[in-house]
């Protein structure tokens, strides 16, 4: 078991609502009142704040630190119908030593695959300290019976997943059946047991409004999520600076209310080092430095890693190398 997963299991002992807010999940009506009582979000203001933080200029030593930090926060992901054991093994090798020319390069946080490839990844990552993350619960649509979703989760955990990335039932959420969404997360949390760390994918692109994203964030945190994650990467709108900023505000406020710290994972659409550094600025100036570690912040990405590596090489050597100097896996 990886070190990350073991910290996770101590961090979230019981899959229940945080004590300070226990009564808000007592009934569908109570939960609705609570979620609708959260402060609204002004879209223009949120987006302009995210854009303003995007103008921070990260240079020299700070840049070196931030590039390495970003690499260490990556959940290196392959989620294709065409995934094979060979592809997953290649990705695991890349995750261990992202830059074959520089062994000082940090390894990634996790390798993220579909549940049927967890065993392959588990074996390929043995002894590396890199976690195996598995998507589950009928990813990405989540349109299946709860029994199927729980079986999917149980299989992933049984195959050795350290982390489970579940999707919420957006249909139930948009229909206003919040308690149903909550109970499903609780059930998946239970299926993860002590072994696996739970990331809850809100699929911001389908929730569509910032008010919904804030409510879904709180719903997932109340249900015992270890991480809240922006998106599956499979719809039109994925992680954006603004929706990630909003979720960082949610985890900040949740810790202030309950004492429990929850992680955030933007996923999908973050392809350049420049973008990744902007997200780290959002973390630093919103949730705060306590979240600046792979334990509390992850990037769900595939092509991002190579751009981070090229920027890292540029900083080290003073010149740009190009795509032939990083590996294609």
């Amino acid at each position, binding site marked *: 078991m990886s070190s990350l997963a073991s910290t996770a299991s101590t961090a979230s002992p019981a899959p229940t609502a945080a004590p300070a807010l226990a009564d808000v999940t007592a009934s569908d009506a109570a939960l609705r009142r609570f979620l609708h009582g959260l*402060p*609204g979000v*002004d879209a*223009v*203001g*949120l987006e302009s*704040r995210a854009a303003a933080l995007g103008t921070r*200029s990260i*240079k020299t030593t*700070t840049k070196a630190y931030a590039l390495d930090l970003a690499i260490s926060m990556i959940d290196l992901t392959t989620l294709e119908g065409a995934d094979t054991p060979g592809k997953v093994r290649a990705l695991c090798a890349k995750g261990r030593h992202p830059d074959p020319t520089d062994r000082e390069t940090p390894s990634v946080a996790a390798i993220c695959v579909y549940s049927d490839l967890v065993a392959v990844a588990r074996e390929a990552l043995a002894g590396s300290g890199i976690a195996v993350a598995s998507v589950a619960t009928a990813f990405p649509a989540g349109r299946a019976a709860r029994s199927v979703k729980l079986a999917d989760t149980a299989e992933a955990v049984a195959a050795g997943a350290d982390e489970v990335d579940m999707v919420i039932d957006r249909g139930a959420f948009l229909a206003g059946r919040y308690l149903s969404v909550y109970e499903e997360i609780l059930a998946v949390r239970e299926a993860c047991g002590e072994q696996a760390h739970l990331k809850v994918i809100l699929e911001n692109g389908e929730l569509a409004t910032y008010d919904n994203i804030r409510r879904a964030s709180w719903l997932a945190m109340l249900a015992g999520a270890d991480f809240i994650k922006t998106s599956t990467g499979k719809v039109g709108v994925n992680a954006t600076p603004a929706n990630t900023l909003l979720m960082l505000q949610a985890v900040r406020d949740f810790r202030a209310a309950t004492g429990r710290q929850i992680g955030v994972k933007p996923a999908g659409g973050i392809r350049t080092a420049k973008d990744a550094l902007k997200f780290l600025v959002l973390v630093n100036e919103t949730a705060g430095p306590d979240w600046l570690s792979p334990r509390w912040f992850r990037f769900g990405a595939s092509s991002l890693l190579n751009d981070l590596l090229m920027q890292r090489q540029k900083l080290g050597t003073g010149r740009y190398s190009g795509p032939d100097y990083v590996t294609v896996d």
Partner: protein
Amino acid sequence: MTFDYAPAPESRAIVDIPPSHGLFIDGRFRAAADETVFKTVSPASEEVLSEVANAGADDVDAAVRSAREAFAGWSALPGAERAKYLFRIARLIQERSRELAVLETLDNGKPIRESRDVDLPLVAAHFFYYAGWADKLEHAGFGPAPRPVGVTAGVIPWNFPLLMLAWKVAPALATGNTMVLKPAETTPLTALLFARICQQAELPPGVLNILTGDGATGAALVAHPGVDKVAFTGSTEVGKAIARTVAGSDKRVTLELGGKAAHLVFEDAALDQAVEGIVQGIFFNQGHVCCAGSRLLVQESVADEVLAALKARMSTLRVGDPLDKNTDIGAINSAEQLARITALAEAGEAEGAERWAPSCELPSTGYWFAPTLFTGVTQAHRIAREEIFGPVLSVLTFRTPQEAVEKANNTPYGLSAGIWTEKGSRSLWLASRLRAGIVWSNTFNKFDPTSPFGGYQESGYGREGGRHGLEAYLDV
């Protein structure tokens, strides 16, 4: 290691600052008639940036005569021809925007992030906007063939040197007037670089004259009998003096003066964005903003929550080198202004309000003031009534919407106000009751050339910007 941002200074090599500057009269630079000069310093370092000519009465006379001579030709040009000059100037501003932004930051002390992302884009937008009006004046609603006024005088402040220049020069020239402009004593450099841009654009000599100097220069310009219209932005005290000077003459005047804007936060507001709005409202440009949201009125039921979030947010503000791209709050513009802010903040403490500022290290040279807030402020405190014009926020509370309106309106000023509520009906109810020239809803300190700007009561009269802004420069 922590995520401290390494210094990221914008290079000042892009701008070449001549060691001395003349007055811009009749299309040429020349020394003052009595050859006196004064120095302009960088408020962030107290370094002398350049020497500037100090215009006296003879220079004012020469500039006004030049503007008068140019008026006949300029006003007779078809609007489309005047527009060509203004479009050319607007494009040159865009092309040279980095140079202008760095110079503005050096001379004024404002962060480069603001001069680059706010001031310069707005300056160019203002010229583009009024260039577009120049050949459409008969459709502006001021009669079939509105005439220009004649020779206009612009006297502008130091808080947005180039933007205030644009607010005066663009509508004046578009409508066919000529102008004599007096930039503020502490921030003359971007106006003088703008004069070079006018030369580059081949603006006919005398259409715009720029006189640097102190308050005496401004007073002489305003009093000059050859001036047909005065446009002033600055303090209420000087505005009153100008109104007295022109009383009894047929000079037209527009005054854009001080403010003590109420910023209302209701319990149903989008609180995270409201906190951003509060910060933007009072700490933008070090609070050197006439429409700054300097009086925060927060509903008592959420006051603790808002204050806690505001203090946390203020602790992340980065105060320091204005040329650093990561600086949020730059230098106070002058020693004189710093003394005024300091005195008012001390008065706040002496009157019993509670002072709070995040711990932040201020540079050892230059003029600096940490972002500060006062709680426990009442309408009776000086810091709730007088314009501080610095990064100092007074926090008051209210219980009901009616009380919010009464407190917001209880001021001799009336320039701007802000409302934070997610309830549309409440925004509209408030907007029709607040006595302020600008009411922002769920935002603050947002500017656009299409939107008129101006005040009530001691905040002045006349409107600048938009179609309304043409009126002051037309004989209607």
